[in-house]
């Protein structure tokens, strides 16, 4: 179970334990298509993807954002997460190996709550960021 981060023990610059994921597979995209309700064929139907100018199907941005969510909730419990946001900066292709990483960028108090700000991102096997995001969690 994820425990609540302790405000006094957290230092700006601290890194989260990264999450290294198995290569994105077509099967995973099919599961995410059903699981997310995002039925856009561009993620699962090669013929459709090619018709719209892509070399192959590619991962839903929200699949990668779910990986950011996994990282953040490995650091702080789900009910302590106040914000999670991201820009989708490049496409994630089938076979890409995504590493999810994060670091502490700030500590502050707002409305009597101790908050920790994080930078989180997904990076592919070539070192290219695919998602650049941020999160805010409440600390104890």
């Amino acid at each position, binding site marked *: 179970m994820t425990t609540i981060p302790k405000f006094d023990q957290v230092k700006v610059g601290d890194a989260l334990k990264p999450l290294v994921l198995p290569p994105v597979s077509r099967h995973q995209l099919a599961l995410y298509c059903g699981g*997310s309700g995002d039925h856009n064929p561009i993620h699962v139907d090669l013929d*459709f993807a090619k018709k719209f100018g892509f070399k192959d199907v590619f991962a839903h941005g929200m699949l990668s*954002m779910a990986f950011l969510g996994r990282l953040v909730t490995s650091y702080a419990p789900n*009910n302590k997460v106040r914000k*999670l946001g991201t820009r*989708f900066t490049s496409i994630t292709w089938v076979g890409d190996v995504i590493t999810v990483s994060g670091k502490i960028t700030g500590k502050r108090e707002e409305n009597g709550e101790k908050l920790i700000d994080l930078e989180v991102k997904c990076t592919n096997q070539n070192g290219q960021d695919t998602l650049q995001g941020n999160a805010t969690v409440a600390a104890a």
Partner: protein
Amino acid sequence: MELDKKLIGHTFKPFTTTVEAGKIRLFCKAIGEEDPIYSDEAAAKAAGYRGVTAPLTFLRALQADDPNKGGLLRLLNVDIGLILHGEQHFEYFAPVVVGDKVTCQEKVVDIYDKKGGALWFVVQVMEMKDQTGKLVAKGRGVTVVRNPDAAKK
């Protein structure tokens, strides 16, 4: 292709959906999430939740329960093969758990283009309220539309 900026301010019809355990289970399988708070009621309650909990980004899956799904694309008259997800942001006010009835309301708040109209950006905000009327989350998404006419030039 040019998107109609007069659609800024368009509000979609709200809808209500029930948070289902089976949907969360499939979502977790797809994303590789194995924390039992998302599958086991006893584990979730032991961790301080009201019930089996929705993963952070499952909110977008609730949004996909809209009976008028695809409304944005119909409004813009854009083919689904031309869109990409540009940004997504969530603010969380309370966890959503299995059995909750969540009412979602979406609104278009901005439409603009870049690269001389080669790419269009549609910004939407969403509010989610639970069965008691309490605001549980807010979302802000940016949909990118690739202009097929720009590719032909």
